[in-house]
């Protein structure tokens, strides 16, 4: 177990370092620079601006200074597009918003998907099964950027306490979280159904049945634990999907989270903000994958024995 954790941590560090380095050189290789917009800037002013942000040396020097600042001082640098703000400040302000939204979406997704999938498996080939699998397929095929506007159009306009967009009232989190969580719910439902069907055909379930264990106890005590394994494995990718989805959803619902900062950082070539966000997303992904691995080992004794 400890070996697994250490292995994963080393891998995560290598991956995040590679990812941020790739970002570092990629944004600088892209033509144009963060200070040029519609207005032409005189050459000497541009040079002075670049010098002020430490962007005047060669890239290797800049690269060294960047990592030294990050690792030694924990300084991710200034934002180049949001004047006067630091990357650390932007992330610490917007991350709680995205985290809340993403967690609620994840909870909704698992909370709806798990029972739906289990129910579908228990009523195999029945109406509930077909209905829930069609709903699940719809959740996969109707992406969040179609769902979001639909929710705005049909829910927000008809229900007083839901707003079309914005982030002022506590209820403002509901629609974006629903739009973000639907896809997760759909995948979780499909995977749980598959896992449940497989477990229910196992010998130990038949033994339990033969011994006269009540059906509900069989499902809850004996089957569910094994049946959720595929869905738990999916939680890593689900986390990535929620990050990606947040780019779209935060734009649609005007949520002041990290996702929309990422999109503007790309379009405005905000070097430091982009590097900082990529680093943060990379670490988040690594943490999510590690938690999933640990959860899997905890749920699956066979996996524990192996490692």
């Amino acid at each position, binding site marked *: 177990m400890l070996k697994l954790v250490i292995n994963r941590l080393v*891998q995560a560090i290598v*991956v995040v370092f590679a990812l941020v380095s790739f970002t570092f050189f990629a944004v600088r290789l892209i033509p144009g620079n963060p200070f040029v917009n519609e207005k032409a800037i005189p050459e000497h002013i541009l040079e002075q601006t670049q010098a002020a942000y430490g962007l005047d040396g060669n890239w290797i020097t800049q690269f060294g200074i960047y990592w030294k600042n990050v690792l030694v001082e924990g300084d991710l640098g200034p934002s180049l597009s949001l004047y006067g703000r630091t990357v650390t400040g932007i992330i610490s302000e917007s991350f709680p918003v995205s985290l809340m939204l993403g967690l609620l979406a994840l909870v909704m997704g698992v909370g709806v998907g798990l029972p739906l999938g289990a129910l579908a498996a228990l009523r195999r080939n029945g109406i509930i099964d077909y209905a829930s699998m069609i709903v699940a397929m719809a959740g996969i095929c109707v992406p969040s*950027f179609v769902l979001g506007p639909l929710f705005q159009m049909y829910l927000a306009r008809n229900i007083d306490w839901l707003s079309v967009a914005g982030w002022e009232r506590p209820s403002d989190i509901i629609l974006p979280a629903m739009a973000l969580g639907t896809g997760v719910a759909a995948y979780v439902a499909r995977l749980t159904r598959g896992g449940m069907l497989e477990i229910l055909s196992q010998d130990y379930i038949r033994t339990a049945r033969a011994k006269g264990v009540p059906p509900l106890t069989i499902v809850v005590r004996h089957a569910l634990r094994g049946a959720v394994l595929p869905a738990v494995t999916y939680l890593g990718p689900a986390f990535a999907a929620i990050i990606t989805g947040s780019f779209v959803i935060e734009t649609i619902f005007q949520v002041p989270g990290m996702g929309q900062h990422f999109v503007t950082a790309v*379009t405005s070539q905000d070097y430091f903000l982009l590097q900082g966000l990529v680093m943060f997303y*990379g670490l988040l992904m690594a943490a999510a994958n590690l938690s999933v691995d640990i959860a899997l080992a905890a749920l699956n004794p066979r996996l524990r024995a192996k490692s």
Partner: protein
Amino acid sequence: MAVAEPHVPTRAAGAAAEVEQGTSLWQDAWLRLRHNKLAMASLVAVLLILATCFVVPLFIDLDPNAQRLDNKFAGPSAEHWLGTDQLGRDLLHRIIEGGQISLLVAFFATFLTGIIGILYGGISGYVGGKLDSVMMRIVDGLLAMPFLIIVILFRELIKVPVEKLSDWLIADVGLSTDLVLRFGNIAPLIVAIAAFGWLTMARIVRTQSASLVELEYIEAARSLGIGHARILLRHILPNALGPIIIYATLTVPSFILYEATLSFLGLGIEPPHASWGSLIKEGANFLETRPALILIPGLVFSGTLFALNFLGDGLRDALDPKSSKD
């Protein structure tokens, strides 16, 4: 998905094709697929969509960018079957052009990921040992990165080189401007998606190739002095084709989704050209006044994903009955 397979002798998938009864693996699979109504309906739907996007334009004059400002937000009419958008452009024509772009991006990217994944995974599994574990470590590392973020960065990075290449192709090679610009618009997206989309394919092929390489017939081939490349391409690859096809079919809808997400964010197809994603994005601006502008592209888009996913599920059940979840 339910598979009916009453008259079909079930045989382990992936087994050698020619067996005594004379029905090949592929004939078996086709029989099974034909009994799957949902998959067949999806196949018909996919063919219809492909025909509408790629055959119909040969016969009508596709004019997706013609603006008629005196005819904005028009409802359906004999001239404009699905009405017009905020600039008076014909919605049907834009959906057809959008479909061409969305589908071409997804198909080309899938094709490229197939080639890279087959070569990488095939070699990794075939050679085995140290090389194998290093190659798979690299795949694991790349898989742990947030996919769409790298695709976005990579697309930005190759946009300008592709533009330069386009200029060169027009000016010095003398290719048709229209063709080059059309392709130059989608090429960065295709390359960016394919550059990081082959990882799962490589793992699937690697698993296949690593287990096939242990079998006697490969040993026999080797003792006959057949070269590595030929063994890989002629004897291993064909037997790994089932899982490859299944995964490729399911890759197409997910790439369509990636393309649409990028275009929705304004990081994909650039105007005036449209893909389904950018049509949905534009439509979202007129949610209140003309919901049809988002509903119709959204419906076409989701319908296509539905059909492709059901077809992929059906193919999986048909080619690999053992893995069926039903």
